[in-house]
């Protein structure tokens, strides 16, 4: 066979393949049109099951972006050796300032430290009784924004490593609590997502199983006439895919409707806090993810149902 002939043969086979798929797809759409009630019900269940985790994840994302500026709001106080010379203090401050994880370094001399202490405590009388300033010089390190907890730990360890630094005090307990809470919430949402994903697979699987029961005679006759397993399976897989994608579209609509409903009060709250915070939508990529997730779960559910129930339908 010449190359051109081979190419033609290939094109013909591809054409036949595409035509078969096209006709299965048309038949599937016809099926949806013939029984819109149950189909819509299945799609609605999938839509809600997908919208819930998508909504939760969206809220988490929004909380995360809202708290982002506060998260690097922690600071580290470096208590230096008491008798470190001013020049050395300045030199250390400059050195630290060069680190990429560090945004700014503030230096408090022993005198400034004492002044601060007097201003913010009730001990100024007591301090006056001391004949010597008991406070060490302090460097206050502000980290750059968006440091992860592990990067923060590394930075703190590095600061502590300097011989001039006696002690590091970190003001970040609440940041850690926030992180911990967010991690917990995220884990919880993923758990719900996994459960709802399984629910979607089961719902689609059950719908397809009923579909197979209802079309038993059609399947038997198709096999009698020489329909391959793939040919018989195809419309059901398309159905599953269709249910999943319709569910994904519905979920997108639900999530966006939820945002539309929540937006006015959120904006009002934000304005009361002088914040420009706005609820972010799931966007194009979010919608694409929902559709893909729906399609994949639908395909999985129908694949399971087809694998379990179609082999049992044999002509006799």
């Amino acid at each position, binding site marked *: 066979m010449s190359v051109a002939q081979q190419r033609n043969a290939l094109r013909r086979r591809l054409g*036949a393949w595409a*035509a*078969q798929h096209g*006709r299965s797809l048309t038949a599937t759409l016809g099926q949806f049109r013939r029984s819109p009630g149950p189909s819509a019900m299945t799609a609605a269940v999938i839509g809600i099951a997908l919208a819930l985790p998508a909504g939760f994840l969206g809220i988490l994302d929004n909380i995360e972006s809202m708290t982002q500026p506060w998260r690097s709001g922690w600071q580290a106080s470096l208590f230096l050796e008491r008798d470190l010379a001013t020049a050395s203090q300045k030199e250390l401050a400059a050195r630290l300032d060069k680190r990429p994880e560090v945004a700014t370094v503030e230096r408090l001399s022993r005198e400034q430290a004492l002044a601060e202490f007097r201003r913010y405590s009730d001990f100024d009388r007591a301090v006056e009784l001391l004949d010597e300033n008991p406070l060490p010089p302090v460097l206050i390190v502000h980290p750059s924004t968006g440091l992860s907890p592990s990067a923060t730990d590394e930075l703190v360890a590095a600061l502590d490593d300097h011989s001039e630094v006696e002690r590091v005090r970190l003001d970040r307990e609440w940041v850690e609590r926030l992180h911990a809470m967010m991690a917990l919430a995220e884990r919880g949402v993923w758990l719900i997502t996994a459960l709802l994903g399984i629910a979607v697979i089961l719902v689609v699987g059950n719908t397809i199983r009923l579909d197979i029961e209802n079309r038993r*005679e*059609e399947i*038997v*006759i*198709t*096999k*009698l*006439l*020489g*329909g*391959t*397993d793939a*040919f018989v399976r195809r419309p059901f897989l398309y159905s599953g895919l269709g249910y999943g994608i319709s569910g994904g579209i519905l979920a997108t609509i639900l999530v966006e409707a939820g945002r539309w409903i929540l937006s006015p009060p959120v904006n009002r709250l934000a304005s009361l806090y002088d914040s420009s915070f706005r609820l972010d939508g799931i966007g194009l990529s979010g919608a694409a993810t929902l559709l893909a997730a729906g399609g994949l779960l639908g395909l999985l559910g129908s694949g399971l149902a087809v694998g379990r129930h179609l082999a049992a339908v044999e*002509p*006799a």
Partner: protein
Amino acid sequence: MITFDRVSKRYRAKEAVANISFHIGRGEMVFITGHSGAGKSSLLRLIPLLERPSGGSVAVSGVDLAELPRRRIPHLRRGIGITFQDHRLLGDRSVFDNVALPLLVAGIPYRETGRRVRAALDKVGLLNKESAEPITLSGGEQQRVGIARAVVTRPPILLADEPTGNLDPSLSTEIMHLFAQFSALGVTTVIATHDLPLVEQLGHRRITLQAGRVAVDTARYSR
């Protein structure tokens, strides 16, 4: 074309087909006759592998069916047109769609479908019923739709199980003549029927079953 070699088929205790051997040549037309329960349907079901024999071997077009891999069964069935006593048409599809189903299954290009379906419907005299629903047709018309579906892919083998089951004599004769025409075109045709008078009148080869065994095979005498 079809060879049975000491074939038996047992359903639990009941032996529906017992030690049957025969050969049917290409283009031959054969009647399988016998009383109800003699094993005619059971015998026919072994040919497209709707059932597997309990013993012996069946060969179709020189292929031993025992050695046919499972994934090749659809290919075997596409080469065999079958009609059933209870028609087995899809009630929720038009006559046209029913007859088009084998073409769809075989992946025949769409533009050829209409022409071939109409040619098949024309042959059985139902061209004007293509958009009717099968339930609205008479028994004889449904049987003819079944025949159109069986021949639309022009298979080399045609099997018919009681095609004249509950039809009046003149319609029965008409349908048998239709099968004779296909046979004359080279299609190997096997028809199970208990309508002995009609079979004798047509005078083709006849294999008579009795309790699952071959009682008479007219080919044995003519040879």
